[in-house]
């Protein structure tokens, strides 16, 4: 059986090890991010939420996921 390669990425400042074959969409679904309530940045570039499935995650990618919280 072919062993799936693992890669390291950073999500919201924390290191995470994931399978090499994941798209951004499947990763975000896997970690249960409520996509309608967030914005996503990949390597400092804002990602159109309709295109998440087309983006394959690579080694050392930096993902930022933000949402609205209470503030003045």
């Amino acid at each position: 059986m072919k062993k799936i390669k693992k890669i390291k990425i950073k999500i919201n400042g924390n290191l995470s090890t994931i399978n090499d074959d994941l798209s951004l969409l499947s990763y975000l679904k896997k970690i249960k991010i409520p996509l309608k309530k967030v914005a996503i940045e990949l390597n400092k570039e804002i990602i159109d939420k309709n295109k998440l499935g087309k983006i394959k995650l690579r080694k050392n990618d930096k993902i930022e996921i933000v949402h609205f919280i209470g503030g003045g």
Partner: protein
Amino acid sequence: MVKLKKDKLIVDKKKFNSRLIVGTGKYKSMSECAKAIKLSGAEIVTVAIRRVNISDKKKPLLMDYIDPKKITYLPNTAGCFNSEEALRTLRLAREIGGWKLVKLEVLGDKKNLFPDMIETLKSTEVLTKEGFKVMVYCNDDPLMAKRLENVGACAIMPLAAPIGSGLGIQNTTNIKIIRSQTKLPLIIDAGLGQASDAVIAMELGCDGVLVNTAIAKAKKPFQMALAFKNGVIAGRESFLAGRIKKSLYGSPSSPKTGLI
């Protein structure tokens, strides 16, 4: 009162019945925040943009307590200390769900939280060109307020005093000058401490006030939310009614004729 029904706050062509904008920070809980907002009658609330807590996704979400379909969210760049951070934050906010009406706040000093007006001006220009409608937190400086207007700000939001200080309006003269020079919505942002401060702001002719700490950190936030609601209404009515001229001398309220 009948006249007041037609008297609306208009920001970026949108009409609001309430002239009180409320911040959603510093409350003990989301439910306390939601109840205070309801009592305040506010139709616009400021919100911050921060990282999602990946490890604890059960944490309550603001959107679960305050429905953005019913209350206008005003994404705010609180905590940004330069133009780059502010632009990044608001571009992300727009991406969450199409928010174009935003509040820009670029701070220059961690102690007094005064705005860095050079960075603020620069950011306002960029954001406006990108199609944002920018309500701008600024100093109570008429010249800077004019420059913000010239680069496309959709509302001028001078501070009353440092954010969270509760000092009330420190420079009524400058606020009056800013009022006289602009037709843009003029909203006092930051530094109010009690309902009478809101009355003063409205009596100066401001279009609205933005309050967070004074409500959230009051001993009884719900009562203070109501007090600010009433203060803004009272101040606005007083402004529209037109005050009497001040005089050094007395003028009797009862007729001088028919005295016994």
